[in-house]
């Protein structure tokens, strides 16, 4: 069984991008030339098609984000499928997977079916949905994963909270045999160690008097769950890795051949807990929290060497009235879809820390492969799933209205480089500046 990805019907794109750098590292493509999109597929005759100058621009396979909160059903005031998928398209994404921690939780075929129907009407790009591991994400009864898998769930996750009971998780891992090996996507955190924590436990939390969430809260659960995955010969995907201790766990597991993949967010790759000194919850309160510079460096190294497979935004929109609260009281989460490429491009690629080729992989083919999704490619004959990018194009975050309904970005007001000019998803123009 595989994830059902849905997108609204639209006109297949037909156009020619002339003289751009065509970069698809996974397919071995890196040349300057013309790219033809005809009737929604790559290749074909360029005659009679609209021509776009690609001079100085980059064409990459469209990005894939395995970790997005679309807040639907229940909090459509903060985001819905239309706005969230439009935000994704504006960020160069062609496929996103939505997390099930909604109201109600996506824990039944009825809710999942309704979301798939809605997405087929509203989604600008391909959207898939995770279902919960446990009913109500309460960590006790497993959801009807056989039925949910047949209906097209992209995998299973209790994201937003961990599966506290090792025995419950073990059953879910064993049950993976029923779901055709759909990934279990794990939010790793020990609820007791995290306690009332609101930021990384470190020098900054000591200075501010804020309760800390230690790195070991994440890594100890990862260690537990990898041990369980080995026991059950199951496949797991670790969400939003934030701590260097977790990187060490993942590195050892990969060396032993454990079937684990993982992701890291742009904000964890470029920011640290120093930013929290501003006590600006709208920008800097998220879970997992921004950690120390040593953690950040470990994450960048792990993404570069493949210990961490891919970038995921953990796009978590919140209504302004929730975020405009004292730091301790505000909810966790920041948006990320519209800034992901520009943030990584500005702070990692252009500073020479990560090659552009690797960033493109880590945002497109690698997340797709990690989650068992179709891999976007520029190869002849493939459906057109691509982004046309001006890598030097300047962006002041938030200056143009966000496509997302929410503005709780960690990078609000920042000057970044990397403008997404055009996104073609599933053969349709989903975003054009």
């Amino acid at each position, binding site marked *: 069984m595989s994830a059902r990805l849905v997108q609204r019907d639209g006109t297949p794109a037909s156009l020619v991008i002339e003289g751009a750098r065509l970069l698809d590292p996974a397919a071995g493509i890196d040349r300057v030339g013309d790219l033809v999109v005809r009737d929604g597929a790559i290749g074909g005759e360029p005659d009679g098609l609209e021509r776009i100058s690609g001079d100085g621009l980059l064409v990459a396979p469209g990005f894939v984000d395995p970790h997005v909160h679309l807040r639907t059903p229940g909090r459509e005031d903060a985001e819905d499928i239309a706005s969230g998928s439009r935000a994704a398209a504006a960020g160069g994404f062609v496929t996103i997977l939505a997390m099930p921690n909604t109201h109600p939780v996506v824990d039944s075929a009825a809710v999942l079916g309704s979301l798939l129907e809605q997405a087929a009407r509203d989604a600008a790009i391909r959207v898939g949905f995770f279902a919960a591991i446990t009913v109500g994400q309460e960590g006790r009864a497993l959801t009807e994963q056989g039925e949910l898998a047949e209906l097209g769930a992209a995998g299973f996750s209790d994201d937003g909270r961990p599966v506290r009971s090792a025995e419950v998780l073990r059953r879910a891992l064993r049950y993976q045999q029923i779901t055709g090996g759909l990934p279990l996507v794990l939010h790793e955190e020990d609820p007791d160690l995290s306690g009332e924590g609101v930021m990384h436990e470190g020098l900054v939390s000591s200075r501010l008097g804020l309760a800390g969430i230690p790195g070991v809260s994440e890594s100890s659960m990862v260690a537990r769950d990898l041990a369980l995955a080995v026991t059950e010969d199951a496949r797991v995907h670790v969400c939003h890795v934030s701590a260097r201790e977790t990187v060490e766990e993942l590195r050892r597991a990969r060396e032993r051949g454990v079937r684990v993949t993982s992701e890291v967010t742009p904000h964890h790759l470029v920011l640290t807990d120093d930013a929290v000194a501003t006590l600006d919850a709208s920008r800097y309160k998220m879970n997992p929290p921004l950690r120390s510079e040593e953690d950040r460096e470990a994450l960048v190294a792990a993404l570069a060497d493949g210990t961490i497979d891919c970038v995921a935004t953990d796009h978590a929109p919140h209504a302004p009235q929730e975020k405009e609260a*004292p730091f301790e009281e505000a909810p966790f989460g920041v948006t990320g879809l519209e800034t992901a490429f520009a943030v990584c491009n500005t702070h990692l690629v252009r500073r020479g820390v990560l090659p552009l080729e690797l960033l493109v992989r880590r945002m497109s083919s690698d997340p797709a492969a990690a989650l068992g999704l179709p891999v976007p490619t520029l190869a002849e004959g493939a459906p057109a799933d691509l982004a046309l990018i001006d890598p030097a194009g300047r962006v002041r975050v938030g200056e143009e209205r966000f496509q997302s309904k929410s503005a709780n970005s960690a990078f609000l007001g920042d000057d970044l480089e990397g403008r997404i000019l055009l996104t073609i998803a599933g053969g349709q123009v989903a975003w054009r500046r």
Partner: protein
Amino acid sequence: MPRTDDARKGASVRRRSLIAMSDLDRAAIARILRTANRFTEVMGRDNKRVPTLRGRTVINLFLEPSTRTSTSFELAAKRLSADVVNIKGTGSSVEKGESLKDTILTLNAYGPDVFVIRHAAVGACNLATRHTDASVLNAGDGKHEHPSQALLDLYTIEREVGPIDGLHIAFVGDVAHSRVARSGIAGFRAMGARVSVVGPPTLLPWRAEEALGVETSTDIRDIAAADVVYVLRMQRERMGDGGQVPSLREYAARYEVTHERLRPGQRVMHAGPINRGVELSGALADDPATLIERQAANGLVVRMAILYDLLAEPATATSEAQELAALAVA
């Protein structure tokens, strides 16, 4: 009338705020302590009211219970002839679920010069500064900071013990959850004191040496080296089931500050309210040789000095001297 000032400066100038002790450098702290000295002289007179802040508006927004701090801020503002409005959590629209942002925006419409804010959550004062141009004076925000307490502690030591530079202060007890300690450590260090923290390892801040620039110890005997022993309030919820120390009994046995654990000449401070027999023995709490009563008494003049420093004209060296001279004849 903040707008008048702004107009005079020809631009919209945001007033200074005092949220953390790091907002003050050594010179600013010394200036406030000098001002407090002058107010102490004024308080010795029959007419204790000075006209300095006539026409200014001070809003005391106390959304967490407080006796000492709220009373002394109210009195301080009144003695300076400011218009004072006191708002508590109970009996205000906060009780109806109004958000802090909306409370600030609403009150801001009355053109206050300063918000004095006490709130249970870290970050409340920072939030307030994003929605008003008035000064924000932190009167305690969760476990973060309590700068007016630190300033009155510095003032008390300077008057009762002597110059702070070179002194050694030991904070004892629940340092991790103490805004008094956090502000105190920053203030004492800024003034050149040596600071150590002594307490159970589960109640000391994470890597306090590196984070806060203090020495740490888990042995109460290490208070011996200190000139001043600052005893921190120990909350009941930290002890026993779910707490950071096993029991009240074990805590008191290891960390209660008593006459027996002090050496002659050491001075004892406590910001109150005191748990007798927990962090401080009853006998010591009643001993007039401690600085505890002086701290409470000095709260008034130091808070007057802070309001004066935030609201009176920016002090150049000469204008400060002139204004203080003017005060003396007021």
